[in-house]
């Protein structure tokens, strides 16, 4: 197909102007940050094993505004999810009660850009499990 140099340059320049990030990169104090906190606070110096916690997330997310994730940690009492590249890393803390049918849940999260998503499970015996996934967040072509 025929694409003139002029068309090609014009498209590239236009696309550059069309970026919109789902979250501003400017960090600010989060009044409720301590509720989920950061991985180190949850672990409090303990080591986390791997293998008993499954974190499912797409390798590539089409839009950082709505990224589906699932966690599954049989025997866990609590699972916390962190987006390590967000202005504040805490995403959610799931505490499973006596009538939980499984220690698994799915939700949709915001990612400010390509980054690692980490889940940490606190197991019934007090030990920890962790799992990590890198999610590439693509930037849309058009501002819409």
């Amino acid at each position, binding site marked *: 197909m025929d694409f003139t140099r002029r068309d090609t340059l014009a498209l590239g320049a236009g696309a550059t102007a069309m970026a919109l990030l789902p979250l501003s990169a400017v960090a600010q104090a989060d009044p409720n940050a301590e509720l989920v906190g950061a991985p180190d606070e949850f672990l409090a110096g303990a080591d986390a094993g791997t293998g008993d916690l499954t974190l499912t997330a797409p*390798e590539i997310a089409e839009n950082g505004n709505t990224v589906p994730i699932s966690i599954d940690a049989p025997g866990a009492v609590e699972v916390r999810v962190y987006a390590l590249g967000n202005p504040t890393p805490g995403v959610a803390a799931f505490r499973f009660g006596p009538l939980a049918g499984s220690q698994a849940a799915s939700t949709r999260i915001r990612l400010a850009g390509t980054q690692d998503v980490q889940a940490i499970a606190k197991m019934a015996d007090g030990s920890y499990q962790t799992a990590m996934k890198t999610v590439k967040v693509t930037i849309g072509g058009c501002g819409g």
Partner: protein
Amino acid sequence: MKFKAMTAIAALLFAPAAFAGGADDDTLVVNGDIEMTTKAPAPAHLDGALDEIISGWHFRSDETQQLQTDDFENQGMIFVDQAMDIWNTAEGSEGKACADCHDDPADSMTGVAATYPKWNEDAGEVRTVQMQVNDCRVNRMGADAWKYDATDAISMEAMIASHSRGMPVNVAIDGPAAEAWEKGKEIYYTRYGQLELACASCHEENYGNYIRADHLSQGHINGFPTYRLKNAKLNGAHSRFKGCIRDTRAETFSPGSDEFIALELYVKSRGNGLSVEGPSVRN
């Protein structure tokens, strides 16, 4: 997943290898019940410009596609619920609700989205769904007209569309609608803005290629109103047109303008044969 030949435009733009650019071969069934036609032979009026018409659903990732397969996952349905509340609520000086004349939209609104925009003989104009709704609001209910593509208006349009899901788009382009259709066609092929791009530059000549890290679809509007993950709300076709023309760095037409009504008719007709999907879910 199929790769189309890389053109200059795609090579220039960032294209991750794991993210194929073309339409995939998945099939769309909503609620395990509504089978959608998402690929169809191009309508005759396209005169070979496209061999096959392909719903924008095929150009999205598996995760985004999945959101449209179940009304509970489809966040556009939140607004359909809200529109049902409006449908049943009396408004305006006449004290009437939509439901007073039109009863259950599951019966009365079936097929509407498949055939709009449509020529209205009494008014002597092509009307979109939103125009028709406003006609009811002003002339039958004595209520204020909604602003074009405003939340209530777009929610109502989505609710009405939801009752045509699975039916083939089939807008009339001949007879009294022909003039508006020709006008819409002219806009579709006109290059706008400093970037000198027509609708056709992206959605006819380059669908399946990348614009930056995103796929270009064929730009059909069978899935409108569409819930976009980007702004987490329902988006109307006119607002999308406006966004596209703005992105060419042009002064745009306004939602509800004669130009966009004509363009809606023309673009909708390019998808004649695809299923109505609104409210769909897109990036």
